[in-house]
Each structure stands twice: as C-alpha cells, then as structure tokens.
C-alpha cells in the first residue's frame, strides 16, 4: 500500500514537472530547454512575492505561474521566433536562456537552503495505515486538476482547439486561418505556466535550489522521451512507469541510482524503440 501511494505521488510529481515541456513540443515542435529554469524561476518569484513584497500567500501562488507564462511569451517572441525551424539553433538558444536564468539567479544570491515555500496545507494525515503529509495530497490533486483542466481547455475552447489543430497538421490548420505564431506563443505561455504550477505544488516539499532546474529539465525530457514526445497519453503513462521505478529504486536500492534509472530509460528508449511507448509512426520518421 505504501509503495502504491508514494509511487503515485512520485509519478504525479514527475507529470507536473514534465507536462509543460511535452505540451510545448507536442503543439509547436519547439523543444523548450529553458523549462527547468522556468520551474525554479517561478519558485523564487513566489518566494519574493511573499517575503519581500508581502503579498498574501494565495496571490503569490497565482502570480508566480503568471510571471512564468510572461517569461515564456518573451522567450518565444524574442528568441524562438527568429530561429524557428532550425532545430539546432532552437535547442542551443533555449538551453542558453535556461542556463542564463539559473546561473543568474545563483549569482544574484539565491543559493543555499534558506529559501523555501510554506506548504498549502500543513499536517500529516493517515490513509490506509500510511502516514502522508497533506502537501503530497495537494500534489496529486493538482496533477488531476491540471489534466482535467487541460482536457476541458483543449476540447471546449476555441484557442485550445487551435492548439490541437496545429499539433495534428500544421499546414491544414494554417489554411483554416489559425496563426501558427500566435498558437506557439500561447503554447509556450501555457507550458511555462504549467512549469510554474508544478513548482508551486512541488516546491513546498523541499527547498528552492538552483540545482533543481537541471534536474527538472532532465526528468521532463526523460518522461517525454519515454512516453513519446508530443503524445499526451504517453506522457502520463511514462510518468507513472518512471515514477514507480524511481520509487522502487530508492526503496530497494541506493538513492544514487535514481538518476541513473532515468538516464538509462531515456537512452534505452531512444535506442530500442525511438518512437517512445506511444509515439506515432509520423514521429518515428523524424527521429531515425
């Protein structure tokens, strides 16, 4: 039972880290390597809102993802729009942005373990004889809410349908009057906001540290690659597969191997089954 509960928590955390990355890539084929940096950035943004600007807790929790979304829009409009279509430049440019954000934060004095966010709900509950703190339940709740919200957004609203249209067939969508640039901006804003939301739910479980940015980026890439880049169902399932395997590694092995499992999963997936667990044939073509 403990394995089941904590494995689920771990999986949903991975999902929260990875979904923004997957969304951006799935919609506009833009690898946002600044994803991890945006995650950490929104953590520190929330911290500044609460501790320096003295905003109420709830307002900070909303403001930080919005700031991240704004950052995402900036990244697209300033950087990505000019190099779109050149894969190598996209990867290098976004990676450079991410590096600049993370190391800039470190230079600005945000290091050490003195930065943390308070959990949304304090306390520990006991369910099925397993003690679990409430923040971890919030994580699971946020994950479910996020998935439901995205489902509604992409199936009911016009802009959401446009996102799916571009993802399925860019040229046909453009012929029907959907502006690819606008959609990509929205996708990047949404993806960055999701990174922010992920950060708001996960950060209270530990400290806000810059190194987290690199870890989140690697986890996000791992989940997306294993699930098949761009495939949403694949992302969810991959998050669970990797989440449980991570939990089991920590529980029955050495915690050092946690990262090794993720990295091996990526390399093996790409070598053995490059389309990922649920990738489509079309994606296979562009990979190999």
């Amino acid at each position, binding site marked *: 039972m403990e394995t089941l509960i904590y494995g689920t928590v771990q999986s949903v955390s991975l999902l929260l880290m990875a979904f923004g990355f997957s969304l951006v890539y799935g919609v506009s084929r833009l*690898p946002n390597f600044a994803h991890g940096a945006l995650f950490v950035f929104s953590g520190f943004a929330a911290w500044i809102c609460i501790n320096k600007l003295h905003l109420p807790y709830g307002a900070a929790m909303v403001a930080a993802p919005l700031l991240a979304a704004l950052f995402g829009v900036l990244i697209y409009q*300033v*950087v990505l729009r*000019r*190099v779109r279509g*050149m*894969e*190598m*430049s*996209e*990867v*290098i*440019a976004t*990676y*450079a*942005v991410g*590096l*600049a954000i993370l*190391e*800039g934060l*470190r*230079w600005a004095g945000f290091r050490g373990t003195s930065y943390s966010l308070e959990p949304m709900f304090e306390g520990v509950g006991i369910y099925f004889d397993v003690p679990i703190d409430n923040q971890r339940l919030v994580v699971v709740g946020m994950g479910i809410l996020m998935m439901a919200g995205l489902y509604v957004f992409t199936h009911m609203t016009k802009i959401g349908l446009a996102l799916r249209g571009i993802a399925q067939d860019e040229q046909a969508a453009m012929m029907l009057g959907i502006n690819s640039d606008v959609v990509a901006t929205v996708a990047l804003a949404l993806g960055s906001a999701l990174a922010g939301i992920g950060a708001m739910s996960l950060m209270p479980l530990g400290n806000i540290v810059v190194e987290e940015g*690199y870890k989140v980026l*690697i986890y996000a*890439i791992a989940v997306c*690659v294993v699930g098949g880049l761009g495939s949403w169902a694949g992302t969810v399932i991959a998050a669970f597969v990797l989440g449980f395997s991570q939990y089991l590694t920590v529980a029955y092995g*050495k915690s*050092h*191997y946690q*990262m*090794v499992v993720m*990295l*091996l999963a*990526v*390399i093996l997936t*790409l*070598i053995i089954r*490059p389309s990922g667990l649920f990738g489509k044939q079309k994606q296979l073509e*562009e*990979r*190999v």
Partner: protein
Amino acid sequence: MAKRKERIDRGIKVRSESIYALASWEEIAYLVGPRSLLIGGMLLMPLILLNSPYWGRVFLSVCIFACLAIAFDFLANVVGLVCLGGAFFYGVGSYASAIINTKLGLPPLLSIPLGTVSGAVICTALIYPCLPLRGIYFAIVTLMYPLLMTRVIEAADIFGGTEGFRGIDGFGSPIIESYALVAVLLLGLFALRRFLAEDPGLVIRAVKENDQSVRASGISVAWIKTQAVFIASLFGCFAGAYYVHMYKNVGISSFALDLSIMPIAAAVIGGTGLIGALIGAILLVPLSEFLRDFGTLRIVVYSLVLMGFVIFRSEGLMNYAVRKYQQFERWVEV
C-alpha cells in the same frame, strides 16, 4: 527608389584563386597573410607567455577548448549530428589516459596517444547504438551521456569514485607541455580540413545534406557516421587526455556541464568551418578567465553571448570576417 545591397568579390580574391596567385607579392600576401598570422600566432604564444605561467595555462586551455569546439563543429555542421555532450568525449579520454598512466606506468608521451585512441574507441562504441537518431533526439541522448557517466561513477564507486585519481605524471618542461599541444592542435586541424576536402569528406558532407541519396549510392550511412564520430572523439579525448597530464589529477568534474557548453558557445561564436571553432575558443576562454572573479556571472555572460549569436549572427565571426575580406558591398538601385 528602392535599394539593395550587392556583394562582389574583390579583384585580388579572384586573381589569387588562379595561377595569378603567384604574380605579385601582394597576391601572395593576400593568401598567406591570414593563415600565417593564425599559425604564427599560435606557435609564438607559448614563448610570449613563458614568463607568466597563469596566462600560459589559459592559453593551453584555449587549445583544449578549441579541440572540443572543433569536435562539436565537425559533428554538427559537417555530419549533421548535434552533440550536446562534448564532456563525454573529454571525460572518457581523461579517464582512459589517467588509467593507462597510473596502472600501466607509461609516460605521458605514450599514455596521451594511447588514451586518446582507446578513449575514442570506447566513445564510438557507446554512441554507436544511437547513431540512427536524428536532430534533437541525438542531442538529447548525447546530453544524457556525460550525466550518466558521472552518476554511474558516483553510485558504483568505480574509477576512484567521487575522488578520482591523483598522482598522474606531468610533462616536466613547460616548453614540451605547450608545444606538443599546439602542434597536435594545428596538425589535427590541418589534417581534418584536408580530409574533408578529399573524397571521403564529400561523402561525410552528403550524409548531412541528404542521407537517402548516400544510401542509394550503396554506401552505408551508419558506417560513415561511425567514422565521423570516431574522428570527433579523437579530438575530444585528446583534449581530456592532455588536460589530465597538465593538472595531474582527474575526477568526475571531467564530465561537467561547462565542458559541453563552452565548446558549443565557441563553435557558434566562431562560426562553422573548423577554423571558426578555434577563433571562438581564442576569444571566449580568456573572456571567461577575466570574468572568473564574478562567479557564476560568467556563465550568464557567455550563455547570453551564445544566445545573441544564435539569433542575430548565426554565421559566426569567422565567416563574417571572411566575407569582408573577400568581398565588398555596395548599395544599388533596383
């Protein structure tokens, strides 16, 4: 009246391309000048810096990073494989050389070449399974390789674990130390450029442009890519092997992120075409030394510079300079 910019080759460039290259000293100087400036400068630098060991070391790191940048540039712009994990080559090379030196007791002048070749064989064998991958997928896998090596060494506690090896032999004299490196760098660069100008180079370029046509010609794409990765690993592993003997120790920092990013930045700033990578390293490494006092600000600076170049000057400084050297521009009415 609308105007557009017109670019025309300079007369001297056209003349010196043909037999008239030998017609006058001016043409000879036009051809030989920039080349001898670079080669002469590289050869004189160790002598000039003989009295300041610190900047001498910085110059040697320029050469080390130039090797890594050349490896990246060759893979990315000639073969079409974007490798974000230059540190992987570097780390494997440094560990291979360190093990050969400490366990077999061979002197540096033997352990460096042996470490380079054996490291390159190991790198090629490990990267071989991912060679069919393209674009960002290859980039992602190669980004993961150095990270994986660090974690495996840390977790399994092999090769000295987090401590690494100490007590590796040095070179003894600083003259040998610097000239061996500069000579290998220049010869390697020259050899690679000659190689790419010959028939095998043509096939390697074709793999980037259109791999289906290469396959249709009955040439194995995988084999060509394997050769290319081996060549790039030779450069990367040599850098690692050399550095180990300069600083006499090795640890998991040989797989650090810095070693992957710096060469990429150098190659992007310098521009494609191998020499550009060298120019980029010459500019970037001293800059990063100047900024060393500012802590991680230097990473911010060079990632912003990198971003700026990717967006606004993607041809790189070298190609820009070459264009200015060979052509003049003027506005003409359309």
